[in-house]
């Protein structure tokens, strides 16, 4: 018997006010899934992310949440890049522990979570260093640690590999793959990188013509479906 989904969106129209952005017939995130969300710019990826995170109510239709995702305490978010100014002093320790905002934990538990999150992304040895002395890839892993410190069941990543070199990109994806296997974290990963999705996704969510098409990677990762999403013929889809 399969567990009920963490989040399930059915027959929904997503948007803002009177502006309809995206139609979702069925989209269910199960525990341990690694979803990649692909779609052109302005197609409604952020709208879907905001709905999944509970920041936006659908204009119509249904969003069901399991008790694990009923509030924000077991959700983690990794933005595209760090928005803070480099002139602002901060250490890796402080930056990552800001991820605990909104959680009511004692000092000991906070320290344990900080260590665990930094261990997972391989930055424990940089804990006392200035955040700004980290490389681009390490900064991105610190952003991931800031989300992981919440010990999330659902992790939402908004194009976190943008601007990273292939080695840094692979290091980040390695951490995510390990998490998926060891902790059954569900990830929803937004990207334009089809090759990355082909290597790591268990499921794909594709946005085309204002509608979401979601399913297992093996069902959707075909030249015709990808070409329909991006309007170009993807020659580099691995077998």
């Amino acid at each position: 018997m399969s567990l009920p989904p963490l989040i399930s969106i059915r027959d929904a129209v997503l948007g803002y006010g009177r502006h309809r952005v995206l139609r979702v017939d069925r989209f269910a995130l199960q525990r341990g899934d690694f979803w990649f969300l692909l779609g052109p710019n302005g197609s409604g990826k952020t709208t879907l992310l905001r709905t999944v995170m509970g920041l936006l109510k659908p204009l119509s239709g249904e969003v069901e949440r399991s008790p694990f995702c009923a509030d924000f305490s077991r959700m983690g978010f990794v933005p595209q890049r760090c928005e803070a100014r480099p002139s602002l002093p901060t250490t890796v320790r402080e930056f990552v522990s800001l991820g605990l905002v909104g959680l009511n934990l004692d000092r000991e538990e906070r320290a344990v979570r900080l260590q665990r999150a930094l261990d997972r992304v391989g930055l424990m040895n940089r804990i006392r260093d200035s955040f700004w002395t980290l490389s681009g890839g390490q900064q991105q892993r610190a952003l991931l640690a800031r989300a992981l410190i919440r010990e999330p069941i659902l992790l939402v990543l908004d194009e976190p590999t943008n601007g990273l070199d292939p080695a840094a990109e692979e290091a980040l994806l390695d951490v995510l793959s390990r998490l998926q296997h060891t902790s059954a974290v569900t990830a929803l990963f937004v990207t334009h990188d089809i090759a990355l999705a082909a290597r790591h996704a268990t499921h794909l969510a594709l946005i085309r013509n204002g509608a979401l098409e979601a399913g297992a990677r093996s069902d959707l990762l075909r030249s015709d479906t990808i070409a329909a999403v991006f309007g170009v013929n993807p020659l580099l889809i691995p077998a």
Partner: protein
Amino acid sequence: MIAEFIESWPLFQHAYLGGFLLAALLSLLGVQLVARDQIFFGAAVAQASTLGIAVALATAAWHPFGMHLHDNNWYPRAWAITLSAVAAVGMELIAGRRESREAVTGFIFLFGSASAMALVAQSPFGAEEVQRLLASTLIGATARDVELFALVLAATILLIAVHRDRLLLLAIDPATASAAGIRTRAWSIGSACWLAIAVGISIRAAGLLYVFGCLLLPVLIAKTLVREMRALYWGAPLIGVACAMVGFVLAHAWDVPPAQMAVVVMSLLLAACWLRRVVQRGSSQPSRTSSDSR
């Protein structure tokens, strides 16, 4: 020099105490502005607050009990708080949508300063008062002012003690703050209102220069000295109060206005901190290169 300052204490105690309390209060609130890189937000709110004082003076001149209203500290203060709150909330709501934050801030600053002068130009005492506010003087602080500043400072410390990390995350990464369940819009408007109240109660006693100086300079100094953002919340007020103390002592000894002197001391300390950083970077550059090459 210090003995003379101490001797003058009974005469100017309210002005000095008011100055210290405002230095602590405004530099605490300035952390949020500097973290959000909204430096001139504080100047625009202070200028809107000056316009509030000008409106109070102008309406007092037209009112049958005008002089009574003018002498009552609460009437101009209520106008100052109202207009600074309107400006602060307006900037939060409008900025970044159709116009850049800098454009809206610039508009409020210019509108506030020009209309404050225009409004009281014909008033017998108004023009002089607005000039005094723009230039800053601490002599006008009363015992009631000191009590009020202490109360607002205590409330601010309490708020920051409870919500420090929430405020920092909101300042550096609103998207992540939102994903952590923080109602970012409500918090931004709430912070703007709190700043407006602090500036609104300060402006008549301290003037624009001192208010803006205390919002900005102690935080910028602290930023060069500490390693974490959280430390700004104790570093900036300490630096603000220390600079105010040195500024007031020097002002008394050299017979210059204390508010301006305090701002000069803060500015010189900031310049020294920036210089120290440049020198440190210069001296660390060759060693880093040599270790990289190894």
